[in-house]
């Protein structure tokens, strides 16, 4: 095995590993290794399911988002406790084994390799998130249904995402910060600066997850821990330089590769990361942002029907129900999206879909961002038979699986839709929808600015 040597640019203080430092290092080493190296069979199932010839950015994102989870589908702090237990046990055994050995491990080399591994692990995570923000995919502009939902009927986490979604430029900026931090991490000399940016940026992401009830607080804290590990290395010297005004020299390790194949392997590994997580992923997220953003279904809705509709008339089993803000049966208003979603507002309670984690769904039926954390409306995807003028509506919320409406539609003019058929309770309905020429203050102000008089 080759040995770690120092860069010859200067003569640094040589660190002698003290016994307690070695013990702490062994724990940290095993702890991070268990979390970073995929030991989970589910990861390989996922990996082998990928069609590498038709590699999708969703696959890359999901690879980058890997963390081992033993107890449930997503990593929890209880998992961390188990990993820490493993690390403590491993470090104990290691300590004993090493006592009986002639040649102890080269801790400088191990430290070097752990830092290298964690730099790349962290950079990949940041690139995965950075690009879906830089090309604003993660938080899309709110759907029409969401624009027509009362503020208080969203969960905090959904509001966080919608708030970001109205300003794609800002979302891109946040993505750019993540990408820059990742690039700084890929370059050894700027690792500390990159780690500092991650501490501030991802630290804030972690706080936001806690405050808004997001589902990625464990993952973001994991990234913060890595950044902390990478940053701490320079802290004593930075304190001397910047706080005490005293001179300091950096402690750096550089691995001297003695064989050509080692140098080539290093380049190949670095090149592969850049190719996969920057070039391929960057191009694909760019294309997706322009063609098929992943949060909304890709299937087109009924042509020319997009809009908000007032429910002018509503009959159930041939009985007219007048306008009502308390009736759970009578519809209040209906939205038809650009894609094949129809949402109905009524006073019928909604058990919300409280998904709050980040995965990129592959198919349309799983693209349910529009109903995550949103009450007040029921969301249906539909299949339209335009020859027979039939709509088959399927409730998109997993809590209402199998709920179906069969409706015949008529469009006497461009602003009116008449629906007849059966609702979710197999009751006969007759509904007259009338398009509302709704102007949204959000968009009016965005167009005219806050300095002009606006009447809405």
């Amino acid at each position: 095995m080759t040995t770690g040597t120092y860069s010859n640019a200067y003569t640094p203080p040589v660190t002698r590993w003290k016994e307690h430092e070695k013990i702490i290092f062994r724990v940290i080493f095993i702890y991070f290794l268990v979390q970073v190296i995929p030991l989970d069979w589910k990861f390989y199932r996922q990996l082998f399911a990928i069609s590498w010839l038709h590699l999708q950015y969703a696959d890359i994102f999901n690879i980058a988002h890997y963390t081992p989870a033993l107890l449930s589908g997503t990593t929890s702090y209880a998992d961390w406790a188990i990993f820490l237990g493993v690390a403590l046990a491993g470090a104990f055994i290691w300590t004993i084994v090493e006592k009986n050995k002639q040649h102890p491990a080269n801790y400088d080399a191990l430290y070097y390799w752990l830092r290298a591994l964690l730099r790349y692990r962290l950079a990949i995570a940041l690139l995965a998130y950075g690009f879906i923000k830089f090309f604003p995919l993660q938080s899309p502009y709110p759907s029409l249904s969401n624009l027509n939902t009362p503020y208080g009927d969203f969960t905090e986490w959904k509001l966080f995402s919608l708030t970001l979604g109205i300003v794609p430029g800002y979302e891109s900026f946040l993505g750019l910060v993540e990408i820059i931090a990742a690039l700084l991490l890929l370059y050894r000399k700027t690792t500390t600066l990159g780690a500092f940016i991650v501490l501030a940026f991802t630290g804030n992401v972690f706080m936001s997850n806690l405050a808004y009830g997001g589902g990625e607080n464990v993952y973001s804290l994991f990234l913060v821990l890595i950044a902390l590990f990478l940053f701490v290395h320079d802290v004593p010297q930075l304190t001397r330089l910047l706080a005490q005004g005293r001179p300091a020299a950096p402690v750096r390790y550089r691995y001297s590769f003695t064989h050509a194949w080692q140098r080539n392997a290093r380049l190949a590994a670095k090149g592969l990361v850049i190719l996969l997580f920057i070039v391929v992923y960057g191009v694909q997220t760019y294309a997706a942002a322009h063609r098929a953003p992943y949060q909304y279904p890709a299937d087109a809705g009924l042509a020319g029907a997009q809009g908000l509709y007032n429910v002018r008339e509503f009959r159930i089993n041939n009985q007219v129900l007048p306008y009502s803000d308390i009736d759970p049966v009578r519809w209040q208003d209906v939205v038809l999206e650009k894609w094949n979603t129809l949402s109905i507002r009524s006073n019928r309670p909604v058990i919300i879909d409280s998904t709050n984690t980040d995965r990129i769904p592959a198919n349309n039926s799983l693209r349910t961002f529009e109903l995550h954390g949103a009450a007040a409306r029921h969301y249906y995807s539909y299949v339209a038979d335009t020859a027979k003028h039939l709509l088959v509506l399927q409730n998109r919320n997993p809590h209402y699986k199998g709920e179906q409406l069969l409706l015949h539609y008529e469009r006497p003019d461009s602003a009116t839709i008449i629906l007849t058929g059966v609702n979710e309770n197999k009751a006969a309905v007759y509904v007259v929808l009338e398009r509302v020429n709704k102007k949204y203050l959000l968009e009016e102000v965005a167009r005219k600015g806050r300095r002009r008089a606006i009447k809405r």
Partner: protein
Amino acid sequence: MSTISIPEIHAVKDNGLPPLPATPARWKTYELIAFRIAFIFFIAISIPNNLEWYSHVAHINWLRLHYRDLYDIARFGSGINFFGNTIFGSSLYGYANWIITLLIAIAGGFIWTAIDSRRKSPAQEYNRLYYWLRVVVRYRAGIGIIGFGFTKLLPVQMPFPSLGLLNTNFGDFSAQKIYWLSIGIVPWYQVFAGIVEVTAGTLLFFRKTTTLGAALLVGALGDIVYVNFAYDGGVHVYSSYFVLLGGFLLVKDIPVLYRFWIRETYTTPSCYYPVLSKAWQYARITLKAGVIVLFLGVLYYLQYVNYKFDPYKQPSTAGVKALRGNYRVTEFRINNRVIPYDPTDSVRWQQVTFEKWTTLTYKANRATFIDLSNGGGGPMRDINRTFELTGTGGGQRVFHYYADTIDHVLYLQDKYKAIPDRRNRVAGDSDGDRQSPYARRQKPDDTIDGSWISAAAWAHIGNENHMIDKTVWTARRDREFAAAPKNEKRNRMVLQYETTDGAHIILKGTDEHKDSLYIVLDRINRPYQVKPSTLDAGKY
């Protein structure tokens, strides 16, 4: 492997201060010129430039302080403004003042250079000037960001949304409003943001922690600059100001970090600390302690009582206890004509709320002018605290009420008014002063017609000034209540209310058009997904 120790060029002195460099750093000519320009520029933008600020500071009643008294000390307009704040008629998004100040600083810097070239100037002098310039900038930035940070640390800058706001559709808000609300719903996060800002400011008070404080300041405020541009928040210039000051403080460290990180060599930071005489040392410590006591101790207390009893963006007077919550309009008659529920009707009220403070809101399907300001500033009267209506459309109408609880009459006034009050006067900026063209056509009407409420009713209503907890009866509040309100041309309604426990209310009276109203309200239980926090500002 062998052990090599870093040579200590200077041992730490007994007084605990870091060592002085043996020879002062040599200044190159371009560095001297750049420094002279920077000196004039940064001094100019660290000093208040409008007379109202000086007058404000001179008139502070130090015995009955309001948090805004100190906040206004910390928040002032600066830069050279004798020549106005526009370049070729454009304010350049508000940055024109910086450019004008810079141009003057460049001119001044060259004049200084010309004068200085006639005499020998030891580098020591510039080291000393640089040191004191950094002190001025550090304290300017520190005080400013702490003033800002405390309104978050005790979460009042972004209030938790009122019922009327929770009931408004997402698309019926301006982007600015949506951002403010998104912080308002998570007061604990707002506290966190406040801690970051106050910490950054505090670190700037100490030279050893200046770099860390400046880095935090640039990071946090850099994000806020972008937020203000993205959401049209209106505070982009003031937040950029802190990025500029923080950036200036970091300039000194960039060569050091470059050498340390990129060149990876032994690095000696340049540092200069002046040697002060004993008298100056006392003066320095007194001033420093004074700033810390005032802006960390006193301001914390004032902000705390403001949060507790008088959150500045929401009305602080408790509403009538029985009249609280979400109400359904069960019956609506205007001039004795019944209008059944119809969401498209332009007259009939829908979705009535009585907030926990003195506000009634309803929705009607009728366009109205919208107040697009931030709803900030420091107004004392409840009617002028407009966060609950600014940036909010969707036919939402918001009325302030005075309640005569003896005769059961509400005297309601529209919280929207065409000519908004000036806010942040001391800062000399116009955030929130957005006048509609409609407003400009209207003549200011300074004569308020107090007679719409009889003397007897006023006696029942009481004195608004003293309706909040005694702890927050401040000189500033007295002053504003003593002054006559301006531009009070508002829609007014007088409604009698009948109720036993507030679950069922009958309102009778006249609206702003003198039409007679008869409205039956029934309280509804309206659950929200947005959950109230354990941090709840105000006392109602």
